[in-house]
């Protein structure tokens, strides 16, 4: 086997070390009962093998540092290096969550001020930083919804309404919290069908989970009427804040009438995204729900930061205070840009998306007409009918052109969907080169469709067998 295709466990040789350490004289002092009975099952490699291993892995991967990454709904923006510098400061890295408030004033100040900033950005009264990702935040927020109605002894509210264009995490989180999920269809314009919503909302409605702008990249223009219907029925409005990058600094979920929101710091606030995390999914809410938030709040009293319990908290959804160093990076981003800078972010994100959408027409038709927000969804159904080349084939072919595939086959209501989100950090030239690659593939689909069906051909692993991967996944190394 080629060395660069081996797992690090396959490179392991017993006794090999990155660093040779003298045998500690203290080992004799450890009581026998506290010693390991067998060594930990870690790979044993020399430093050069270790460095090569991860360098090779990094070379095979495609991150935002490698090239354009227009993965819709994921906001794969550039992560500024200044964030990393801040997160590497020893005053933050050399801390322990149990070292006490007096020795953690700087870290507490970051938690306190970030929560305030995020509350201000999304128009909420209070924010918890504890959830580790967006879906985790949704889950925590839905626990709050449940507790809110339980405390009011309003036990008939068992249903959560979710649009058919929603992220899958919305119905999943609601189901995990024991709610019955009721889908509401989209209308011909791609927004919530108002008649259907009015018919569904009632005294059993706990909440509506809405992404605004929605996953089609369209602003829910009836948002005020939607809020009137749900609040009129006695339900709560939950905002999936995954698409905050489209509206940050322009309008706020709290002002639209939402009662709860989650944010994704690894999307909108530029912390590293992908590769499994760590992420951060703070939850914000209006005052009447604040005591239910997960985790402790940080307060500033008498010139000192301290933790304070929330009276009716649903409990901890994660240990300690969330992914602190991720929060710190987001705070660095907010301070770097300031209010005006954050508004420019969303303006440029929307401008970039609209520019790319226009460049791709007429070959690639958007699924809905009009201007988009920070992303747009193409339907490649016509191309597939005419050439047999699917959305997946175009996506895989983009890999050979140095571009990460857009999100495929989502949202579910668009056939042969490709969901494209360029983000604000891409230049005009990058967008133009990407558009040229898309158009070249469109022409190739007619002249030489087989070329697309085989793609990618320039990657170490070519077209992966997705069917076998889904059916017979090998999830652990068995040596």
């Amino acid at each position: 086997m080629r060395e660069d295709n081996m797992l690090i466990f396959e490179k392991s040789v017993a006794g090999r070390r990155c660093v040779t350490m003298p045998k500690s004289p203290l080992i004799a002092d450890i009581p026998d009962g506290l010693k390991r009975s067998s060594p930990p099952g870690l790979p044993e490699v020399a430093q050069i093998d270790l460095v090569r291993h991860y360098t090779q892995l990094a070379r095979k991967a495609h991150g935002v540092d490698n090239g354009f990454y227009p993965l819709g709904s994921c906001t794969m923006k550039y992560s500024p290096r200044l964030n990393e510098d801040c997160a590497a400061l020893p005053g933050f890295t050399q801390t322990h969550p149990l070292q006490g408030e007096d020795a953690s004033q700087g870290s507490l100040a970051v938690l306190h001020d970030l929560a305030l900033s995020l509350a201000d950005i999304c128009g909420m009264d209070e924010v918890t930083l504890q959830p580790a990702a967006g879906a985790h935040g949704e889950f925590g927020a839905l626990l709050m919804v449940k507790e809110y109605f339980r405390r009011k002894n309003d036990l008939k509210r068992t249903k959560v309404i979710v649009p058919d264009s929603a992220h899958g995490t919305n119905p999943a989180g609601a189901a995990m919290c024991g709610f019955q999920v009721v889908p509401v269809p989209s209308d011909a314009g791609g927004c919530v069908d108002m008649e259907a919503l009015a018919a569904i909302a009632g005294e059993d409605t706990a909440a509506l989970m809405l992404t605004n702008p929605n996953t089609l990249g369209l602003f829910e223009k009836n948002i005020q009427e939607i809020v009137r219907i749900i609040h009129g029925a006695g339900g709560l409005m939950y905002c999936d804040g995954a698409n905050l990058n489209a509206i940050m600094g322009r309008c706020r979920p709290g002002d639209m009438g939402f009662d709860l929101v989650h944010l994704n710091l690894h999307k909108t606030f530029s912390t590293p995204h992908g590769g499994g995390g760590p992420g951060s999914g703070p939850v914000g809410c209006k005052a009447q729900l604040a005591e239910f938030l997960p985790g402790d709040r940080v307060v500033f009293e008498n010139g000192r930061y301290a933790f304070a319990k929330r009276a009716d908290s649903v409990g901890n959804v994660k240990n300690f205070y969330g992914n602190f160093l991720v929060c710190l990076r987001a705070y660095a981003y907010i301070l770097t840009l300031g209010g005006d800078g954050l508004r420019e972010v969303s303006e440029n994100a929307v401008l970039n998306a609209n520019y790319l959408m226009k460049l791709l027409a007429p070959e690639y038709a958007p699924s809905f007409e009009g201007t988009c927000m920070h992303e747009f969804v193409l339907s490649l159904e016509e191309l597939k009918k005419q050439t047999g080349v699917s959305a997946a084939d175009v996506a895989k072919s983009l890999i050979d052109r140095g571009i990460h595939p857009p999100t495929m086959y989502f949202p579910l209501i668009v056939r042969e969907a490709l969901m494209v989100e360029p983000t604000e950090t891409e230049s005009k030239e990058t967008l133009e080169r990407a558009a040229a690659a898309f158009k070249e593939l469109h022409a190739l689909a007619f002249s030489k469709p087989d070329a697309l069906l085989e793609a990618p051909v320039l990657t170490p692993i070519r077209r992966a067998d997705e069917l076998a991967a889904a059916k017979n996944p090998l999830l652990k190394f068995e040596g």
Partner: protein
Amino acid sequence: MNVPDNLLYTKSHEWIKILEGGNALVGITDYAQEQLSDVVFVSLCGEGEKLSANGTIGDVESIKAVSEIKSPVDGTVVRVNQGVMDDPALINSAPYDAWLVELSGVKGEDSLLSAKAYEELIGDEA
């Protein structure tokens, strides 16, 4: 697109075949399997389960998405097709042989679509 004349259909792309004796087989249409692409997993409700029309028979997972399968009619599940659960690709290769469940006490088939009406429906969608 294959739409056999001897079956009835739903707007959500299930087919139902009324058997001699009144029981019925339910599956998903050729159009549905093509939209889903390669089916990877099938999970079905248990035998003995009473379903009302639009109740959930189970779900079908493809490499693109997971889709709920709805019962076209009221009825009780008397048999589930273990063969399809073991080899979900049967849904792609022969969607009208790969029935998912057999129902007894079938009621409500009057409101279903004929082959012609279903063909018009998918003609509009396609």
